Each structure stands twice: as C-alpha cells, then as structure tokens.
C-alpha cells in the first residue's frame, strides 16, 4: 500500500478529485496549507509598511491506495493538477504499513 501526499494549486482541487474518482479512488483528505517552493511570493503594502509574503496558499491532498494503481494515480494527479506554470506543486509517495477501518475493524487493502 502507498500513501500519497500531493501539494497542488487550490483552484485545481476539483479537477484532481474528479480524476481520482474516475480511476476508482475511494476517499481523499484535503488540507489547506501554506508553503513555498520555486514559485516566488508577493509583496503586500499597507500604507507605509511593505511586507513580503513568502508563503502561498496551497492544498494538500492525501490518499491511501493499493500498490496496483499507484502509477495510474500519479498520472491522474499530474495531468489534472498541471497548468504548466511554476507553482503547480509536487507529489510525494510513501510506503504505507497499516490501515484499519474504525467502524468494522478491517485491516490492510480491504480497509482502503
């Protein structure tokens, strides 16, 4: 099993969700986050005070999947979240050791 954490542009969230649903991903967890990579921040000016805002708003999408569909999932996110401009985000993949569905007590792939 794999755990995927993808950082994407906030306005791409719906497209990513649709692309993931289309290939059978059952659930996703979404968090609004801030961060910076190569994309530069912006400057805000309040009367005489100028502030450089480095951290930009992004959305973090987390999903747990079976090994078999890993490539499909990465491809789906990559295509749906891309704009071609700097700041499109990244996809991180982790090995996932254990999953338990709280309601039934199922574990492993069945619990995904």
């Amino acid at each position: 099993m794999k755990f995927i954490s993808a950082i994407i542009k906030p306005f791409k969230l719906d497209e990513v969700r649709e692309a993931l649903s289309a290939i059978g991903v059952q659930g996703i967890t979404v968090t609004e986050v801030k961060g910076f990579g190569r994309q530069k921040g912006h400057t805000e000016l309040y009367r005489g005070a100028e502030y450089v805002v480095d951290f930009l708003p992004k959305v973090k999408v987390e999903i747990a999947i079976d090994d078999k569909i890993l490539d499909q999932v990465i491809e789906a996110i990559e295509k749906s979240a891309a704009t071609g401009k700097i700041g499109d985000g990244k996809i991180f993949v982790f090995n996932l050791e254990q999953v338990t569905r709280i309601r039934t007590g199922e574990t492993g792939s069945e619990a995904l």
Partner: protein
Amino acid sequence: MKKVLSILALVTTLGLGFTGNVLAEDAPAADAATTEVVATPDAVAPVEAATPEVATAPEAAPAEAAAPEVAPTVDKGDTTWMMISTILVVLMVPGLALFYGGLVRSKNMLSVLMQVFVVFSLVSVLWAVYGYSLAFGSGAGPIIGDFGKLFLAGVTSDSLSDTFTAGVKIPEYVFIAFQCIFAGLTATLIVGSFAERIKFSAVLLFSAIWFTLSYIPIAHMVWGAGGYLLGQGALDFAGGTVVHINAAVAGLVGAYMVGKRIGYGKEALTPHNLTLTMLGAALLWVGWFGFNAGSNLEATGGAGLALVNTLFATAAAVLAWSIGEAFTKGKASMLGAASGAVAGLVAITPACGSVGPMGGIVIGFAGGFLCLWGVTGLKKLLGADDSLDVFGVHGVGGIVGALLTGVFTAPSLGGTGKPDFSIASQVIVQGEGVIITIIWSAIAAFIAYKIADLIVGLRVSEEAEREGLDTTSHGERAYNI
C-alpha cells in the same frame, strides 16, 4: 406666521445691534448682519427675505422691542437639524472603531473597539460634569471658561444657545450634546496611535487628563466666548485644530512614550480586516456630514455649503490618495482609498463653512496627497510607531486644512470671505492657531501620559502583548470561528 415672526425678530435685532454671539466665526456673521448684509451666505436667506418687507416691519418692530427685552427666534427646523446632526456624529464612533479595528491584528480587535467605545463614554460623562462649563460656560476668559455651569447647573429645556445669526437660537441642551460628541470623538481618535500595546486603565486615565488639560482649553480658545484664537480671527469651522491637530499631536506623543510594538519593523503587523476598515471609513463619511454641516448650527445655506464641501473634498481626497499610490507604489489599494476619504474629511473640516466647492476640491486633493506622504515619508522621518497613523492622517490633514482655509476663504478663490479678505494675514492667523494647538496638546499629552505611567503604567507585559489584548485585557476574543 413663523416667517413673519422671524423677520420681526431679525429686524429687531438689527435695530438693537449685535449683543454678543458666542460661537466661532460670529465676528464675520455679525458684521454681515449689520453692514454687508448680502455678503455672507449664512445671512443671505433671512436678510434678503427681510429687505422687501422693511417698509412694513418698523410698524411692528416697536411692539416687539417693547416686549420684555428680547425675542430670540428658536426655529424648529434648526433644532431638528441640530439633533439629527448630533445623532449623525455619534455614528462616527462605531465608524472610527471599525476603521481602526480592521487595521489591527485579530488578537487586538476587541481592545480597540473597547477603547474607542469606553473613552467616548467616559469623556461624555466628564463633559456633562465639568467639560461643558469650562469650555462654553458663562466665563469669557481667553483660555478657559468657568465653573458656572458645573453639572450643567442652571441649564433647563428653556435655556438657549447662540447660533451664527444674531437673534436666532437653539436649545442649549442640543448644543451641549452636539459639542459633547466632538469632545468624545476627539479623545477616541488618539487610540489609534498606541493601539495593540497599551493598558486599558492607562487609556482611560490618560484620556480623562488630556481631555481636561488640552481639549477643553483649545475648544474654548477657538470656539468659546472671549477665546484667544477666536479673538484673533482664526477660522476653524468644525474643528480642524480643536479636534484633529489636537488629537493627532497627543497620539504622536503617545507613540513615542508608549514605545514601539514588539516586532515593529521586523514582523508583519498586517491589518486583519480591511473590509471593516472600509465600512468604518464609509460610516465616518456619513457621520461627518453631521459634524461639518451641523457645525453651522442652523439649517441654512451655510449648512448646505458645508455639506457639499464634505462631499466633494472627500471624493477628491479618495482620488488623490489612489492616484498617488498608483504612481508611487504601482497599485491603488482599498486601504489607501479609505484612508484618503478620512484625510479629505479631516482637511475640509476647518474649511467647510467658508470655502467654495472648488476650493474644497483643491483642499481635498492636497489633503489626500500630503497625508499619503504623512503615512509614508513623514512616518519614516518621525520614527515613531504611530500604529494606525493618527498623526499622518489627522495631523497632516488637519494642518493642511487649517492653512488652506486661510487661502480658499478668499472671495477671489470662491470663498465666503469679505471683499477685503487678506490671504497672507489669514494664513498667519491660521498658522498661529496650528502652532498653539501643537505645543499645547504636546505638553498636555506628555503630562497626561506621565501621570498615567506613574499610577498604572502605560504598557502591558510582553507576554500579554504577544498573546493579544483581547484575551489578556478583556477576557474575550473577537472571533470564535
């Protein structure tokens, strides 16, 4: 019938001569009433109405004069207008609170709202107890009134106050309330300078002392009977010196004495809600119509003039600030437009009753551009953490307005000054008023902060400042989302 009565009263007064008007600009108004009847817009309407009927009036005049002493006119329209103006000015309290509140960080929102609300209430009570008597009481000293109306002694619903027109009066209670709001509002303006770090008890103590030592004497000098600056001929229609320069200087002294906020110049101290700031500025604009046009004390063309000036000058200042920002910073901001509105309102305040609409627009533009410099270039020069730019907006705008009042009151520039109006000498008188106010307020503020510091201490602890004043000073949070 009422018209006839007012004409009779006017003619009687003209006959009896002017008998001591109490308020600012009464000198020109009195001159107009006796000599240059048509020159001053204030006096135009009633006097013109009276002229054609002069032939019939003398028959009735003796009877009127024989009646016990005087027959002052109290017009229901004037009284209504002044009560509505008073209520409009109260709208500036939430306006200012929201304007300031939006500019602080969310952890200090309630502390600013609370300081504005309670300082206003505190000064209102002090006004009734001794403020009114010392500022507008029966005493005619050059600097201060007397204790004759302590606790509003002797004032009843039949008591009357003078207006700018001889013989036309308004109920004294209405005048007391109208002037009370000015006093309260002036003290609340200062809150913006030391916001986000001062102790609540220190704010209240400072406000009470400063109101007593600075607001009352300056108000008396500019507006009160026998006041020094009034005698010099200084023009301050609705309070450019009394309210804005006075408060701004006290604020600047406070910014120095309370010290900079933790993280000032290093961390981002961003406004938490500019939507509220814009709403506050808009409420201030609405309330300011009562402030400026109400200062005419009568529902006449003079009030109309103050009204259009409050409209056009403010609009011009919004444009000026936005244009200035767009050219110097690259973008015109909402905060800039809202600040421009307040700058324009401040700048036109002393001028609104005596300059023409075009002069008003020029004053608005000048106020907008110069206050933008006040919160950027000048702020850097001063080196104080005047949190919400009270001096940059109210101080600079107040000084610009006070001086330009001396320019655009000139009849050749569309103002209502007399034909022999001298721009140079008037600007000097205006400058004198500005300098006296700056020095007086600075010393009074210094004393008031020192006393507050000795008794309760000015600043909250570093820990409380980081935590935010809402929870540490007031035990509540503005937003529980």
